[in-house]
């Protein structure tokens, strides 16, 4: 069989992995010096070549991106195709025959799924469903239209004698060819449109079409193919009916398979709490299983994976851990990008093999013109109809971009390679035409679409940061619209979406999400959470220190804002160096990472954001000037934490956990002011010079893992190692920091030896720090400033106070409470020297 021979010739890219012993003689570069190792090479040949090709493609990508000028003008897909051409030419010249081709089996089973999964999973679902009507129309009607008009027109061309008679093809053959050449290709569209940045609506319509038209393409291709194989004389009327029916079976069946697997996937991830490590794997496995299942049942596999990704994302994202989410995202992007790269490169390489194709100018030119023309015509006609029903009509510019953005790609190529030459005698001509069409659309259209978009001034997508207001108001608008539809009595889109959301909330989410994940699910909360993370990251990036437990509930947060707004790093460098030293020691001794994660997470969960007064920004900045100097002793705070049981329920009532938490923090103040000791001030600081203050070792990583604990436990764990180190290394640090403080701080306490003289701070009144004293000094004379004590107590009396405190905050100018309790902002907190790591 010819196909078998072809597949032997072709590089079974990943397919080679299945049949590693398949290619005995077609060795690419039989280097003479490698004689000794020859047999070993055969062992590893197939995977080795696969890896090598991917490596070459990736390296090529790197090279392309070295020059920004080139990549801003030429889409990557073009460059890859051209590179493929060159490489194919080299291989052809060296090996005297074409090798390493894009093999359909490899393409459909290994290269396509990652790309489709990636696009389905990260599809903006809201946008997708908002435009579902248009997308479906273009995907179904548009593809059918393209296929039939192109096929029929080509047949007409042949009848008119413009196609050479050696192209032996009847109407059915042309329709078959039309069906495979008409489908807009998701890979090509994605590759080009991702760089063009047209507005979201336009993108989702073109891209959604390219994904959903797969079902139509598959059906048309299969129906036409079987008709051709049966011979047109034997086709019965029932076969046409079957063809129409199979359209529904294939598309709906594919979607159903995808949804079933999405359901399974969501359900499975609900129970991965103790085996987080396999979460990303599950996502990929089940999605791939969906693809293979659909392929097996000859349903639309692309549709299946798209629906799977689209359907499961919400629940999976809520269920899996944060790290898994990142892993899934990155792996998916990597795989997709890798597959895309390889596809385009192999497309280029495949084109070199002239033994496979035969040229006919009439057919090639005719096809090119027809697909462009009918695409444009189809888009205009459909858009005209659609605009009757659309709230925001698609204007002419949109239509131009949509027509021009109908790129053909590897799917068409793989399908045409799959044709059986014995049944379709004109296969070689079709292959050549397909190659030309694919190259033309990817290279010419891909190159020109960017200038075109610029020239037409197509509305670009604008990236703006999500804001809470937008998110909240958007929800309000949704509810308003749903309500208005109710009042008007018209059950339209908003009504059904509202209905679906209620159903989802009531049943689906209950079933598919673990209980602790509910909160993530809420979009407003989600935006809030992400904003906080962003703030925290930028805060930490700028050298800030993550404030822990009480830093959150006490009005110390202005520091965060001012930190972000002023150049914190400079402050740190200038003022805090001496005190920072010991901190690093501690940090390295402590099992840093988990703890940092935990604290970071808790911090964020607990609501990093605290109201700030913009107009007080300057004051805030000043107020925190002294901050870096606190580091030395703050980190030594012994905060004993009650480790919560990591039940899922804890999330449901985090205010309570927080309360427990606050009580669980024990501060052992040795011989300092009584105020502190009896107050059990949450977040008050304590020097822990002896190991007896060691908390009950809650340092076990699992207990700290961010996702396992609610936002409540924000305390710091101090392990025994820390305290062992402390007496040695901390001593000087304490002295330094103390001296630096006392030199600035409250006049009564200035007895510690001054080791470093830090420049006196303008706002010295804020410097009275937590009541601590150097361990070397048994009799602390550090007077506890009354205002500080007051503030400390007021914060600590009970956790019931905390909300009030918070409530007051926005109404309370920052200046006010600095005045009230000078310095409480900055030092009632434990810090991690996270910045030093970054």
């Amino acid at each position, binding site marked *: 069989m010819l196909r078998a021979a072809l597949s032997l010739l072709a590089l079974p890219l990943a397919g080679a992995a299945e049949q590693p012993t398949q290619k005995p003689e077609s060795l690419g570069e039989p280097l003479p010096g490698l004689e000794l190792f020859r047999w070993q090479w055969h062992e590893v040949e197939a995977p080795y070549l696969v890896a090598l090709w991917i490596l070459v493609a990736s390296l090529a990508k790197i090279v392309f991106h070295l020059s920004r000028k080139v990549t801003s003008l030429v889409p990557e897909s073009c460059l890859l195709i051209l590179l493929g051409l060159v490489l194919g030419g080299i291989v052809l010249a060296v090996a005297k025959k074409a090798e390493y081709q894009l093999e359909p089996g490899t393409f459909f089973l290994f290269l396509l799924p990652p790309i489709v999964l990636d696009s389905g999973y990260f599809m903006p679902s809201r946008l997708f469903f908002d435009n579902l009507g248009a997308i479906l129309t273009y995907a179904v009607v548009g593809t059918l239209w393209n296929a039939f008009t192109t096929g029929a027109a080509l047949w007409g061309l042949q009848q008119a004698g413009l196609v050479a008679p050696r192209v032996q093809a009847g109407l059915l053959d042309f329709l078959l060819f039309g069906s495979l050449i008409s489908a807009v290709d998701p890979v090509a569209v994605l590759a080009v449109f991702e760089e063009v940045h047209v507005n979201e609506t336009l993108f989702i319509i073109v891209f959604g079409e390219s994904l959903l038209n797969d079902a139509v393409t598959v059906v048309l291709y299969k129906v036409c193919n079987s008709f051709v194989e049966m011979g047109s004389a034997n086709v019965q009327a029932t076969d046409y009916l079957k063809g129409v029916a199979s359209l529904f079976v294939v598309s709906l069946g594919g979607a159903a398979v995808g949804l079933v697997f999405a359901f399974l996937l969501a359900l499975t991830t609900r129970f991965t709490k103790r085996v987080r490590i396999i979460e990303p794997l599950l996502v990929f496995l089940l999605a791939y299983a969906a693809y293979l299942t659909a392929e097996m049942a000859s349903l639309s596999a692309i549709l299946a994976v798209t629906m799977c990704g689209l359907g499961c994302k919400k629940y999976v994202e809520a269920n899996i851990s944060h790290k898994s989410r990142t892993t899934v995202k990155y792996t998916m992007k990597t795989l997709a990008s890798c597959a895309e790269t390889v596809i385009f490169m192999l497309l280029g390489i495949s084109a070199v093999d002239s033994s496979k194709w035969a040229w006919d100018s009439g057919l090639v030119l005719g096809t090119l013109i027809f697909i462009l023309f009918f695409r444009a015509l189809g888009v205009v006609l459909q858009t005209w109809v659609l605009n009757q*029903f*659309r*709230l925001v009509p698609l204007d002419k510019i949109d239509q131009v971009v949509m027509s021009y953005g109908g790129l053909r790609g590897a799917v068409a190529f793989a399908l045409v390679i799959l044709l059986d030459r014995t049944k379709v005698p004109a296969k070689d001509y079709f292959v050549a035409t397909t190659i030309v069409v694919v190259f033309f659309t990817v290279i010419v259209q891909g190159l020109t679409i960017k200038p075109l978009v610029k020239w037409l001034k197509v509305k670009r997508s*604008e990236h*703006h940061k999500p*804001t*809470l*207001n*937008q998110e*909240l*108001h*958007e*929800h*309000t*608008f949704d*509810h*308003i*619209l*749903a*309500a*208005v*539809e*109710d*009042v*008007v*009595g*018209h059950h*339209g889109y*908003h009504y059904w979406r*509202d*209905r679906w959301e*209620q159903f989802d*909330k009531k049943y689906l989410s209950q079933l598919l999400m673990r209980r602790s994940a*509910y*909160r993530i*699910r*809420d979009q*407003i*909360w989600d935006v*809030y959470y992400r904003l906080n993370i962003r703030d925290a990251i930028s805060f930490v990036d700028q050298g800030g220190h993550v404030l822990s437990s009480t830093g959150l509930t006490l009005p110390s947060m202005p520091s965060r804002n001012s930190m972000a707004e002023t150049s914190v790093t400079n402050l740190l460098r200038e003022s805090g160096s001496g005190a920072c030293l010991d901190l690093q020691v501690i940090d390295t001794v402590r099992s840093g990472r988990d703890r940092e994660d935990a604290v970071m997470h808790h911090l964020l969960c607990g*609501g990093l*954001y*605290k*109201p700030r*007064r*913009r*107009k007080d920004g300057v004051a805030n900045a000043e107020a925190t000037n002294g901050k870096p100097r606190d580091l030395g002793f703050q980190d030594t705070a012994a905060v004993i934490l009650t480790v919560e049981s990591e039940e899922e329920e804890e*999330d*449901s*009532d*985090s*205010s309570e956990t*927080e309360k427990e938490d606050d009580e669980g923090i024990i501060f052992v103040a040795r011989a300092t002011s009584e105020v502190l000791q009896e107050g059990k001030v949450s977040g008050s600081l304590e020097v822990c010079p002896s190991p007896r203050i060691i908390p009950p070792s809650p340092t076990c990583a699992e207990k700290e893992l961010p996702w396992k604990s609610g*936002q409540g436990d924000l305390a710091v764990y101090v392990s025994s190692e820390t305290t062992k180190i402390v007496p040695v290394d901390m001593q000087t640090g304490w002295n330094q920091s103390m001296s630096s403080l006392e030199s600035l701080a409250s006049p009564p306490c200035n007895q510690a030896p001054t080791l470093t003289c830090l420049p006196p701070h303008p706002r010295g009144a804020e410097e009275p720090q937590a009541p601590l004293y150097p361990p070397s000094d048994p009799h602390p004379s550090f007077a506890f400033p009354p205002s500080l004590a007051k503030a400390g107590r007021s914060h600590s009396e009970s956790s019931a106070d905390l*909300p009030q405190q*918070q*409530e007051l*905050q*926005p*109404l309370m100018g920052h200046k006010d409470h600095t005045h009230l309790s000078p310095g409480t902002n900055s030092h009632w907190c434990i810090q991690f020297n996270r910045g030093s790591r970054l």
Partner: protein
Amino acid sequence: MGSRSSHAAVIPDVDSIRRETGFSQASLVRLHHRFQALDRNKKGYLSRMDLQQIGALAVNPLGDRIIESFFPNGSQRVDFPGFVRVLAHFRPVEDEDTDQDPKKPEPLNSRRNKLHYAFQLYDLDRDGKISRHEMLQVLRLMVGVQVTEEQLENIADRTVQEADEDGDGAVSFLEFTKSLEKMDVEQKMSIRILK
């Protein structure tokens, strides 16, 4: 729709309503039908009860507020012009709406008016500002029960502060508009069938 337009005569003041709201004849007829269907006792106006009986509104978190918006200034009834006037906010913005002569009053479905409609759903005490408390109330309606009260307060704080530009701890209508500058309000606050 053509067959229905004969009913247009039934609607009192149909021309002035059309001028004010910009609704097409067909839409007005449809809305009038709906109005009459909602008006159970054929009393010629709608009461709060009439609107409350719409099932789906009861589960809408903003349902009560939206019903309330039909009854401005504490009135107990809304007649057809009033009913249509509220719904006119959701008429899609069309090209001819944008180039109106400045003498005419701003159409009800202008961006500003759409936003104002949403704004007054927040601003319960009608002082022209969304206070933190009012924001919190809305959030409580919108955000799921899974989020605790304290977190809600944090969110409310942040939301207010995000939009609050003059630092008075509340969101004025101007600030509200600004916070939604980038959003396609014309599109998001329109219903296609209300042409």
